[in-house]
């Protein structure tokens, strides 16, 4: 089974520029038109399953607004 990922967008930093939306190879990011950030932008959000945690969104984000998580299979060391 492919490992899954997820992202967290920090609304303090996100400026709704959409570069992550355009870059995500899984097409699972969109701007959240229901909310505004403190600066008044529509923030990016995950809209679907299928995030692989590839971090490409974070690579293009000019505002370092994205934290990326990915599942990892860890062997128990005990």
């Amino acid at each position, binding site marked *: 089974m492919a490992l899954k990922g*997820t992202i967290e967008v920090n609304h303090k930093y996100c400026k709704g520029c959409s570069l992550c939306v355009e870059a995500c190879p899984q097409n699972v990011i969109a701007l959240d038109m229901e909310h505004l950030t403190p*600066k008044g932008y529509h923030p990016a959000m995950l809209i679907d399953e299928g995030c692989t945690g590839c971090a*490409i969104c974070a690579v*293009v984000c*000019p505002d370092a607004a*994205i934290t*990326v*998580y990915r599942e*990892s*299979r860890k062997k128990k060391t005990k």
Partner: protein
Amino acid sequence: MIEMEVVYSRPESFTPTTTHYCPGCTHGTAHRLVAEVLDEMGIREKAIGVAPVGCSVFAYDYFNHDFVEAAHGRAPAMATGIKRVRPNNTVYTYQGDGDLASIGMAEIVHAAIRGENITVIFINNAIYGMTGGQMAPTTLPGMRTTSSPGGRDVETMGYPVRMSEMLSTIDGTSYAVRRSLHNPANVRKSKKAIRRAFEVQERGMGFAMVELLSSCPTNLKFTPQQALDFVGDQMVSYYPLGDYKVAPEVKALKV
């Protein structure tokens, strides 16, 4: 057992401050790459940045390390003084193309001629961003700006300057390369070059510059993505990406 691990988070070399950059401006991306490299090399606490005049004039607020502000174009001169007095610190300039290639042309060229052991991050966005989109020395032929409304006419306004190529002809230059920030693959390559440029300084190998093709969506009147496409489609053909000078000892560096 499956656990969630963090694969990317905001660099520690940043302060918890929002930037004043326009949405989608790749000044932010370039800042982020510098911050990531400082984190990875563990040199944040001894880094001293020199900010330019231009849109990145407030860079000192965004990095969580010492920073000074230079007069327009004079960052390489200021960095020279700081590095000579404090050789154990990591000193870098961050400069736009108006700052570095116009008013500051003499300072950058002579810093290279002297082979100063500093790192230069050069943002080429083909325009004066801060002051309202006037023509820069790097503006492309035919490109419309507020001071070349009919498009840059090279007969009367001269030709764009290719800084990496020019500095590569100087013996004091150890590393001069051009990268671009227009897509994820090129952002990754840019980061590798920034890493190398800082490693050059850490080993006392002399003058290193990374030129980054960058976007100014606001003054080009493009969306952020269109501005990146302009960089990838138009700027890269006039400013070919590549390694213009890599001194043998720099080539031998394992980074």
